[in-house]
């Protein structure tokens, strides 16, 4: 059985999902790490970030710094996601997670993904999340393995490495489900 190299072919759901999970882990690690660093800095300045819950009146430099630190952390956590994705997609076409999994995002016209296209794609990802992941699952049934965010930004995800699959297993699966379909038909 010869191995087919799948480099340049549309990437499937599982590879993309694993890449997405890796990206989320990285983002979470950055958020947590930055929170620890900010807390340590404020502790060095003798400012306790836990001492100013929401609604605390700003009546001193201490409370101002405390509220400012908390707002920064929240803002950073919110902004980090789009920053991360837009930066990596527009720069190289692949995030760190996608790099690990050997995937690359490209535009359907063959051009490089720019800032706006990256931003639109990220917004499309949020739409997919809001629809409980249905937009992501669309990859499973689409002929070009495109999710809603891909269709929105007119992008697709390709294997960027000489991908090979276990042909024997795939043939077995195809036989199994192909036969069932033929029987039911």
């Amino acid at each position, binding site marked *: 059985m010869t191995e087919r190299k799948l480099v340049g072919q549309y990437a499937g759901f599982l590879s993309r999902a694993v890449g997405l999970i890796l990206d989320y882990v990285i983002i979470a690690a950055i958020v947590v790490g930055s929170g620890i660093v900010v807390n340590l800095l404020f502790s060095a300045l003798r400012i306790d970030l836990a001492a100013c819950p929401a609604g605390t009146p700003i009546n001193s430099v201490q409370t101002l710094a405390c509220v400012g630190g908390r707002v920064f952390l929240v803002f950073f956590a919110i902004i980090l996601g789009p920053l991360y994705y837009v930066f990596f997609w527009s720069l190289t076409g692949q995030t760190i997670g996608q790099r690990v999994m050997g995937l690359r995002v490209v535009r359907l016209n063959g051009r490089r993904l720019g800032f706006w296209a990256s931003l639109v794609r990220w917004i499309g990802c949020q739409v997919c999340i809001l629809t409980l992941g249905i937009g992501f699952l669309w990859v499973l049934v689409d002929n070009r393995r495109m999710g809603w965010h891909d269709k929105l930004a007119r992008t697709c995800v390709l294997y960027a490495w000489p991908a090979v699959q276990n042909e024997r297993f795939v043939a077995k699966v195809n036989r199994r*489900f192909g036969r069932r379909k033929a029987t039911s038909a």
Partner: protein
Amino acid sequence: MIDEEMQFEDMEPEGEQGFARPESEGFDAYRSVVRLLVGLALVGGEGLIGRVREWETAHPVGGSAQAEEELDGDLARHALIGMAFETAEMVRQAALGAAGLSVSVAGAMWSALRPITGSFLFRPFWSPVRSVATRGEARFVRYTRIGRSEEQRSRKMADEVTGLLIEDILRYVADNPGVMALIDTQVVALATRAETLDPLVQEVGDRYIAYLNEHPDDVQNLVQGQAIGMATEVRDDVRTVTVTGDTFLETLVRALLRRTPREDLPPPPPEVQHQAVPGRWAGDIRYIKEN
């Protein structure tokens, strides 16, 4: 030792008292020595045969030896060795042949002389002959029974004597000051040798450590290369599994949704495939500048 032999004398053969000599007569040195010799011969012979069998199994006989380039002396020696091996078989065959021949001759003669020996002239001699034969048969049976029971006792006696002998030797070795002095001498010699070996081992170790200190880059590259190689291997394995899983999941979902199974995906246009060329990471910045 006499007490122990007395102890062996007290051992009764099981269920065979009817023919054995009464043990209440006391110690009989001859019987005990014979019993011991028989036991040692039986046990030792079996042990020897067992060892030889193990050795033969471990070292099976190979193919025929090369007969080329043998000197006359070699030929004669080999002939003698071969004859020694063949002699036992020849003697056994000859004995069997002689026994068979004597039985045949005796049978033939008996048949030929039957009219004479069965005549009234020989009738007065038959009664003493039969009596002698009956006594001989009884004696033979008695010997057989004694041998059967004495064999068990002899084996038991040989086993116990061997064990006692080994214990005596060990006790002697343990209590002997000469042996202890010999052991002490060997221990001291070993310690002296360790003193000479330790510096040698240390010197070799120091040499290796010095080499590692002088060539840290080589060692670092080696370790890093190994680590990167392992990480790459794991990554490729994960990728292969997920790529296979991609196809599997799609096939499964399409089967669940009762859609036709997909044979092959339509390939992306060439200009899109071109964008996926791997190994672009290092040249990404240049690529952006160029485009």
